[in-house]
């Protein structure tokens, strides 16, 4: 058989398969892999999705996704995302409302997720984070990770624990401090500090008025003109490099950055609990309208069930440092000593305890992807960058 024959046969076989698939009713497609648009942090158990597939009992076809809100909106609201993806992840506290309001995602049936009752109390009706998974009272998303972002610092060089955002803005770290290159978390964390320290009147750090945004940005501009910030970081790799290379000694960042930076060269880089408060956030998984139309609901609910299982929660906590979204994680870790050795168990217990400390700080504010005065945020953030 020569190459030409082989290709022709393959082509004919493919055409036959395509014709057969086209003739099948839509329900028959349910055996297809769930097309999941998600970042790498949405999986645990290895470098690929096989462990997640085994737990869920469904095939998953992952498609890499960034954390940018504009990407989701462009694909799901303006573009052809509903024909490409059956399920997707994004930030709760804004994105689920935006996507549901545009009909890009569909309401969910909690009774089809056995582990739904395991979900932490904050998400249950009336809880502090209940709104982040609901739209107009309807459940539209399932949380899989969350955190309260804080300050990472090089304890080896600094030699003391830091427990206030004051340190990030202190002149002793001039030129050795960094913040995220994103107006959302950077302005919110700065606003939390200014509000709680009594330096500025701010009603809601998550949704500031134009005057409040101006005050917060002016504070950052003054510092920046003094050369206080080494840079504003973008991405996990960039943030971790800054800390591990000692370019900066203090950085407001995601916990995963602190973990990676500490792992990279074994430096004593820690993640503090800030007495003024933190920006809390979560990431959620959602069923797209297209996914429902293609009959992928069963596969979606199977995956959602895994996301709310201690199996997932224990592994995301141990590996990436994200907060599990369900109860029973410590018990699960205790019951599986083969999967979690003594060191890992100690790390996860300590990490979880610190998370609990951060989560209960009264000054915390929830992430807001679309603040009311978003234009003021954007315009003033441009001025911060230009300063």
């Amino acid at each position, binding site marked *: 058989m020569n190459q030409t024959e082989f290709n022709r046969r393959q082509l004919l076989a493919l055409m036959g398969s395509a014709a057969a698939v086209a003739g099948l009713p839509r329900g028959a497609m349910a055996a297809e892999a769930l097309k999941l648009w998600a970042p790498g942090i949405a999986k645990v158990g290895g470098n690929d999705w096989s462990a997640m597939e085994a737990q869920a009992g469904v095939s998953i076809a992952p498609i890499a996704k960034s954390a940018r809100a504009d990407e989701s909106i462009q694909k799901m609201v303006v573009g052809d995302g509903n024909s490409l993806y059956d399920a997707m992840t994004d930030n709760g506290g804004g994105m689920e409302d*935006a996507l549901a309001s545009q009909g890009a995602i569909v309401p969910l049936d909690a009774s089809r997720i056995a582990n739904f009752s395991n979900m932490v109390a904050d998400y249950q009706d009336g809880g502090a984070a209940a709104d982040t998974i609901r739209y107009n009272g309807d459940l539209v998303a399932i949380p899989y990770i969350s955190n309260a972002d804080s300050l990472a610092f090089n304890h080896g060089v600094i030699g003391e624990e830091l427990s206030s955002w004051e340190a990030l803005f202190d002149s002793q770290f001039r030129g050795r401090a960094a913040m995220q290159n994103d107006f959302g978390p950077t302005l919110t964390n700065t606003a939390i500090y200014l509000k709680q320290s009594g330096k500025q009147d701010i009603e809601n750090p998550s949704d500031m008025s134009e005057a409040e945004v101006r005050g917060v940005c002016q504070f950052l501009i003054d510092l920046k003109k003094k050369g206080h910030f080494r*840079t504003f970081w973008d991405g996990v790799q960039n943030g971790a*490099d800054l800390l591990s290379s000692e370019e900066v000694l203090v950085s407001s960042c995601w916990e995963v950055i602190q973990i990676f930076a500490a792992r990279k060269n074994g430096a004593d880089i820690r993640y503090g609990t800030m007495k003024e408060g933190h920006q809390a956030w979560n990431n959620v998984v959602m069923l797209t309208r297209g996914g429902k139309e293609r009959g992928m609901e069963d596969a979606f609910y199977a995956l959602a069930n895994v996301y709310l299982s201690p199996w997932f929660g224990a592994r995301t906590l141990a590996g990436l440092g994200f907060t599990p979204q369900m109860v029973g994680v410590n018990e699960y870790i205790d019951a599986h000593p083969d999967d979690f050795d003594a060191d890992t168990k100690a790390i996860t217990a300590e990490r979880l305890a610190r998370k609990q400390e951060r989560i209960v700080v009264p000054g915390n504010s929830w992430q807001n992807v*679309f603040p009311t005065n978003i234009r003021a945020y954007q315009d003033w953030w*441009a001025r911060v*960058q230009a*300063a």
Partner: protein
Amino acid sequence: MTVRNIEGVAPVAAPLREPMREKLARWVFALPLAFMLLFFALPMALTFVFSVFERTMFWMEPGFTLFSYENFFFSARLENFLSSMYYSGIAVIVCFVLGFPIAVFLRKSVPQVAQHRVVLLFILPFMVSEIIRVFALRPVLQRNGLVNTTLQNLGLIDEPITALLYTHTGVIIGEVMSFLPFIIFSGFLAMEAVPKYIFEVCDDLGAGPVRRFLDVILPLAAPGIFAGCTFIFVNGLGVALLPNILGGAGAVNAGLIATQAIAALDFPLAMAVSAIMMTTLMALLYIGHRLFDLTKILSPIN
């Protein structure tokens, strides 16, 4: 009858074949024009049109407003844009100073049979993704990177030089590393307008290197040099990853301004930034054409 038939057919058949060939030839020559219209003029026109649309929460809707331009010109974005023009200009100068002598050397001193092979060497870095090349600069330039460690080990500095990374200097270094080959290529092409005997004539007449460069090489090679410099300048303005990865807290260029506008779902503003960038480029090309007659770039090849 036969003669008459032949005579009758011949005058009819000949004009039929000729116009068909001519028609096809016309269409062939129209293809580049169609390409330019489809992939250049139309997107450009749409960019201008979208820039005056009304912004909605997630997209934009038809309308006419200059708000995006107001938002650009009466905010810190203009300052950022002008600043990135300034630093791109510095990168162009550095590239020219480093790259053009290489092009002259290639034309003047390398045997003609080997010239193109040597030029190919400069393509090799482009086999690696730009993002990897730019990222690779960080371990070299950072506080405890290769440059600082080497200088400290040699006893030349006591404290690490922090101006190499997360500063405008870092961005300029990145631009030079990324775009230097372009000035070498365009310089190499431009030097085709300067025959080798010109150097000998200059030597015979006693013209020194400076005078030879200013009075002979520069005027002859100016169109090609300008094209290369414009390419570097525009890339310096537009490639967002350079200030993003190597720049500090204040390093922003036009590409990054547009990217940030898209991230904030302000599509008309992103279009306005793009339109302003394109206008800047067109103005530069117009000025360059008036000064140097850019059509001459192709004349040495002809």
